């Protein structure tokens, strides 16, 4: 029960070259393969024909490292909710279907090659303030500070972000508010996050703007494509926390 598919894939030799779509045939694809394993098969074919295989990123292939970044049929990470491209299986496609594959597109995510984009802006936002300043060795006993399970769970829900950038890729404004909000929300719900609250929120928001990410206009496409289904409540919280720094 194998499938044959037509792929239309964005190819771009380097950051300065012009990109274009190229069609490929993906033959004898098992419905149990992941989307990336399907691309592996296409690439094996390209290599055996002495052609440059399609560059795309992946590492853990179990939905947690955040490396894979494909827009599939116009949707970041493809049609399945709460799923990274590496965990998307071919059983969700039909035999004979044409599938369009593109990279993340955003001003702040410059293209590198084919389906690979530069997401280092996310690292720089985190460097601006996405941490608690605690040197190794200076921590009190872990059970000294009680944290209500409710707040610990809220913090965890936000902390589940894998930094893939689908939220930016899906947003018509290429806004990074879901990504930034997730980190801000995690610390806002924890006592450990309070001392540096003002510095953190302002520094991260400033960096986000400086890197060229857009503003949020509440379309909520980010939540719809987020593989960890992070709620846009973190954007509300980011706005609240940002205002709170001026109180």
């Amino acid at each position: 029960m194998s499938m044959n598919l037509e792929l239309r894939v964005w190819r771009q030799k380097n950051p300065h070259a012009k990109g274009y779509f190229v069609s490929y045939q993906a033959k004898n694809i098992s419905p149990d393969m992941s989307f990336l394993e399907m691309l592996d098969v296409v690439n094996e074919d390209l290599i055996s024909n002495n052609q440059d295989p399609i560059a795309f990123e992946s590492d853990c292939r179990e939905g947690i490292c955040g490396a894979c970044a494909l827009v599939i049929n116009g949707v970041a990470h493809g049609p399945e909710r709460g799923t990274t491209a590496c965990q998307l299986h071919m059983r969700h496609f039909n035999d004979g279907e044409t599938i369009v594959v593109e990279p993340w597109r955003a001003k702040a995510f410059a293209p590198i090659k084919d389906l690979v984009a530069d997401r280092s802006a996310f690292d720089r936002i985190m460097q601006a303030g996405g941490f608690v300043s605690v040197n190794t060795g200076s921590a009190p006993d872990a059970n000294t500070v009680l944290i209500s399970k409710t707040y610990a769970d809220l913090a965890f829900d936000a902390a589940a972000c894998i930094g893939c950038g689908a939220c930016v890729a899906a947003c018509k404004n290429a806004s990074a508010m879901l990504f930034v909000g997730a980190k801000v929300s995690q610390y806002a719900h924890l006592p450990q996050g309070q001392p540096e609250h003002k510095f953190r929120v302002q520094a991260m928001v400033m960096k986000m703007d400086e890197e060229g990410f857009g503003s949020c206009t509440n379309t909520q496409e980010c939540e719809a494509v987020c593989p960890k289904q992070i709620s846009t409540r973190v954007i509300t919280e980011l706005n609240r926390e940002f205002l709170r720094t001026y109180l």
Partner: protein
Amino acid sequence: MILDAKIPSGPLPDKWNNYKNASKPINPANKRKYHIIVVGTGLAGASAAASLGELGFRVSTFCFQDSPRRAHSIAAQGGINAAKNYRNDGDSVHRLFYDTIKGGDFRAREANVYRLAQLSGNIIDQCVAQGVPFAREYGGLLDNRSFGGSLVSRTFYARGQTGQQLMLGAYGALNRQIAAGNVKSHPRSEMQDLIMVDGHAKGIVVRNLVTGVMTAHTGDAVVLATGGYGPVFYLSTNAVGCNVTATYRAFKQGALFANPCYTQIHPTCIPQHGNHQSKLTLMSESLRNDGRVWVPKQKDDKRSPQQIPEAERDYYLERKYPSYGNLAPRDIASRAAKLVCDEGRGVGPGGRGVFLDFSDAITRLGKDVIFARYSNLFHMYQKITAEDPFEVPMRIYPASHYTMGGLWVDYELMSTIPGLFVLGEANFSDHGANRLGASALMQGLADGYFVLPNTISGYLNQIKPNSIKDNDSKCKQTAIDAADYVHRLMSIQGRHSPDFFHRELGKIMWNDCGMTRTEKSLQNALAQIPQLRDQFWKDVRVTGTDLEMNPVLEKALRVADFLEFAELLCHDALQRRESCGGHFREEFQTEDGEAKRNDDEFCYVAAWQYQGASQKPELHKEPLQFENIALAQRSYQ
């Protein structure tokens, strides 16, 4: 060669303090003068780089991923052990130490493991202070769960994403030091070689994975935190980028490689489904807290699991190991699964699978409780298999997961090359022949946060800082050699992709040096690997050019090293004529089919020294001395 582990004097509980008291710190004003290179930014690398930066050293980090946060530590699911005794169930530093030594089948150093157990509590404190959202109880205190190989509940967790949360904590600490200017981060940079000057590690050559350019980076010490070599079996639970290159190149430069045959095959992974599969997915061991492992009593039973009545099911772990039951350690649970499948009682396509059944726990605790504990794991399982574990039992099978072997290090975590330190999974030091669940995160963070920052001064005090520049002739030559090696690979222009050779190597290793090994199978592997390697160097095809982003070239470079390293692994497995932990030689087993150690002849660390291309490496032995615990047949019955 005499392998001096530099174990400090004094009684076991005092050794680490004695070591620290005897060490000479570096003047804070002088720390800026030292530049330390850290390769790998997982738990061990990120925590080490951040902590060294906090101390005032200048640090550069390198990782092949596009961001330090993506290192494969991020995928660890179940939890992290710590001897906090928050449960009042009798846990202690000594108990964690003993469980770890016993779990490793008495093939690890007492002093290292004791230090690990002593530091375990500090790790939890540190991570909580960083804002890591560990699971909590309604009263606001930290929650714990149980893991294999232990009778106490000492595992701290953050749903099924503990590794991710600890990783992001360490990434945050690293980011803070990058922002402070103490650490310089080099993502998309893969180490190709170690720069050696007068017998000391003085830097590395890296390939920029975007431009393909080779550059030399010098430092006063080099820290490898580059993970394990699980993908030597091709399919494993590791990320597809995980590789042995950094540690293997260090081996070729003279660092001894210890116990490569100690490989961990994890019992609970989603079974293989086809030939184009790129990886196997782990289902956390924590599932064995509530899931019961079984197969049908009859052979070739094709009924669906619900149709098989209770009396016709064999809960073989509970039957064979009544006191540990489903929480038997990984090596034992894996072999037991292989055994029942070899008997023809395996389930699912190809008969290579066993059931992990939650129906009793769902009846006892309710669906909501099970959902809260394992929702992300159930979700992941359903994504991959299109089956709902709430409705039908999971099917699982063992897969390559973790490697206990690694570069030999002394108590200070320094390898046999002065100035080369090795942390986390990349070293061999703490897990013996088998690692217990939730101990990898513990070791990676202990090494990075607490051990290395206290031991590196011992070496740095002996050398003059900044003695070599990036444009030194030795650096230039190492970079030229690395580029030549790339050109050699690219010029072959053969017929097969690097993946083709990797898959072939995986078949050899899994069949002949996998969950069980024999003298014959190992000799077979040792005959086949050099042939495959020759074929690779005649017939591999690398498309594109070297001076661009080229994933095929990256893969070819990694596979070339696996093809050499695999032989080292088999040499080690062949010389160790005993069974212990993850190394099971069929010739050496008890009447019950358990691993039979030979303490008289093999109670040592096997450390191998490179002797040149295609030459058999030379074996050196570090005897293991057990002064505080008695060697015993490992029993979980």
